[in-house]
């Protein structure tokens, strides 16, 4: 018997030496996968900062079983109103994650409602194919809405500085300070363009773009339209304003009417020349292009919010032989206008145009404030580049804006 035991032991040793042992080791390595996973550690639940109160943030340290190449499925978030449960599944977070915002909607009547100021208890479970292991219960924790988003402090500071600058220059302008404003070729050309239309006996086409009355570009365009309308009334030229948005149309009618009144020619105002065309983008393009090709306006103004239609309008205007003055704050459309129009107001120049046309000291003061604010931004950018280059990140971090 003893001889058989020795032979068996020798065979086993031999087999181990030739590789059977590797298989045995593989089985041994798989053994942890066969047991439940380790739970996540240091689970924390707290009110999500700077939100409307309908969210709780959870953080944890990864489970020891959450390793690369393992069959770890993720972390299940469990929530209850009481520490003893029952706990409701709030979703599975993928392996490797260590944070989750448990949030919902604020409307009580809707699915996924997440109450504010309500005690919640949480557990985070590590999940594998074998099973789940839950962390200890944490809580109570409440979602509370905040009244100030500290993450937006850099924006608030910038707004306060800029508002201060603007008010300062407005006061200076009111006191009679002479403010130099650089010439804008596009605005200087307005009078020339209206004069040309008068000489040719052809109308002027004014396109306010696709923006709504709430868009700043459209508001700036109304101001320019008012000045253009006054000059048009002075020169006894006709003005066509096809509108994309009905509210814009109503405001444009009032603006043009006021321009005619200011020129002392209210009887020359024709409401039918400012009309609604359509609120479909390409139908609007078709309509405006039709006006250009049929009426052959001497001058086309494209001032406001423009998208893909910008080049289609401007190219048709070129074909119609019109002088074209354009301006938009849509960065992607500016190159199209630059290529196809005679004069283009680039970005902020559109907003500056009203002050430039009116030459009112108060409006010029706001332009001056913009110039100083830009100088400040350039200075900050240079300091930031230098600071970051020398590894001093504090300065750059002060400009970080949170959600």
């Amino acid at each position, binding site marked *: 018997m003893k001889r058989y035991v020795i032979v068996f032991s020798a065979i086993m040793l031999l087999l181990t030496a030739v590789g059977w042992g590797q298989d045995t080791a593989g089985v041994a390595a798989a053994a942890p996968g066969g047991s439940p996973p380790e739970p996540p550690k240091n689970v924390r639940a707290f009110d999500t900062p700077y939100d409307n109160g309908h969210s709780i943030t959870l953080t944890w340290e990864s489970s020891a079983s959450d390793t690369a190449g393992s069959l770890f499925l993720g972390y299940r978030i469990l929530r209850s109103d009481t520490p003893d449960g029952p706990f409701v599944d709030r979703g599975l977070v993928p392996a490797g994650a260590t944070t989750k915002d448990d949030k919902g909607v604020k409307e009580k009547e809707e699915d996924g409602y997440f109450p504010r100021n309500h005690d919640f208890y949480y557990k985070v479970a590590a999940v594998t194919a074998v099973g789940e292991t839950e962390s200890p219960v944490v809580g109570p924790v409440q979602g509370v809405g*905040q009244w100030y988003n500290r993450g937006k402090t850099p924006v608030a500071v910038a707004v306060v500085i800029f508002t201060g600058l603007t008010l300062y220059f407005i006061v200076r302008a009111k006191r009679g300070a002479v403010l130099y404003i650089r010439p804008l070729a596009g605005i200087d050309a307005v009078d020339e363009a209206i004069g040309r239309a008068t000489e040719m006996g052809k109308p002027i086409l004014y396109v306010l773009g696709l923006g709504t009355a709430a868009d*700043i570009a459209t508001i700036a365009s109304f101001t320019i339209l008012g000045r253009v309308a006054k000059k048009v009334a002075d020169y006894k030229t006709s003005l066509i304003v096809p509108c994309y948005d009905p*509210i814009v149309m109503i405001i444009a009618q009032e603006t043009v*009417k006021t321009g005619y009144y200011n020129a002392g020619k209210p009887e020359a105002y024709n409401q039918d020349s400012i009309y*609604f065309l359509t609120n479909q983008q390409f*139908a609007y393009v078709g309509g405006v292009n039709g006006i250009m090709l049929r009426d052959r306006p001497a001058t086309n103004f494209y001032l406001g919010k423009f998208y893909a239609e910008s080049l289609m309008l401007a190219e048709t205007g070129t074909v119609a032989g019109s002088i074209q003055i354009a301006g938009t704050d849509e960065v992607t459309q500016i190159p199209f206008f630059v290529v196809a129009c005679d004069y283009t107001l680039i970005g902020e120049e559109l907003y500056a145009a009203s002050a430039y046309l009116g030459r009112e000291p108060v409006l010029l003061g706001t332009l001056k404030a913009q110039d100083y604010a830009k100088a400040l931004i350039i200075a900050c950018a240079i300091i930031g580049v230098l600071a970051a280059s020398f590894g001093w990140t504090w300065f750059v971090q002060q400009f970080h804006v949170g959600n």
Partner: protein
Amino acid sequence: MKKEIPLLIVFVSGLFMAVQFFVPHASSEFIYEFVMEWSIIIGIFALALGIWSLVRVSVNKIRRRSENWPYAIVILAGLAAMMVFALAWGGLESYMFRSFFNYVMIPLHATMFSLLAFFIASAAFRAFRARTALATVLLISALVLMLRFNPYLGPLGGPEAGLAQWVLNVPNLAAKRAIIIGIGLGMVATSLKVILGIERTYMGSD
């Protein structure tokens, strides 16, 4: 009072919207959403005014036999047809309404949009004539980018790929950011002018 009340409304609304940006609380969100919903409702009523304006202008054109007046008939006929299909024949899901929308409106829109390719070609032809030093730079930049993104040439890995990326990421992005910063400041300045009542043209008065 005729001007003071609208100015006060603008001041209060503008100030609220500016402050609301910094307040994440649900109460602030509620008021913001309430105001936005009302703006949509007002927009719907304004659409009726817009349609009335279109009808009035078109009818006047037909009545006066103005130049190109038959186009006004097409406008009114199209408007009436779509309204009748929607209101009298089963709403927006009616066969005629959907057919006109899918087989007339959408193809017409697509046709207009596709014309953009030809407009870009004609504009590029004019812009790329190397008459000045700046126009030459524009032409060279455009050639580099066109080489880089031309689908028929396939993915190129030569020096033009790096150059194209540099043109996009450095001079192009720098110019874009400069414009965007200017636009941002201009927006704040214009908003301030409106909120403070300095800019009033939108109210129909200088």
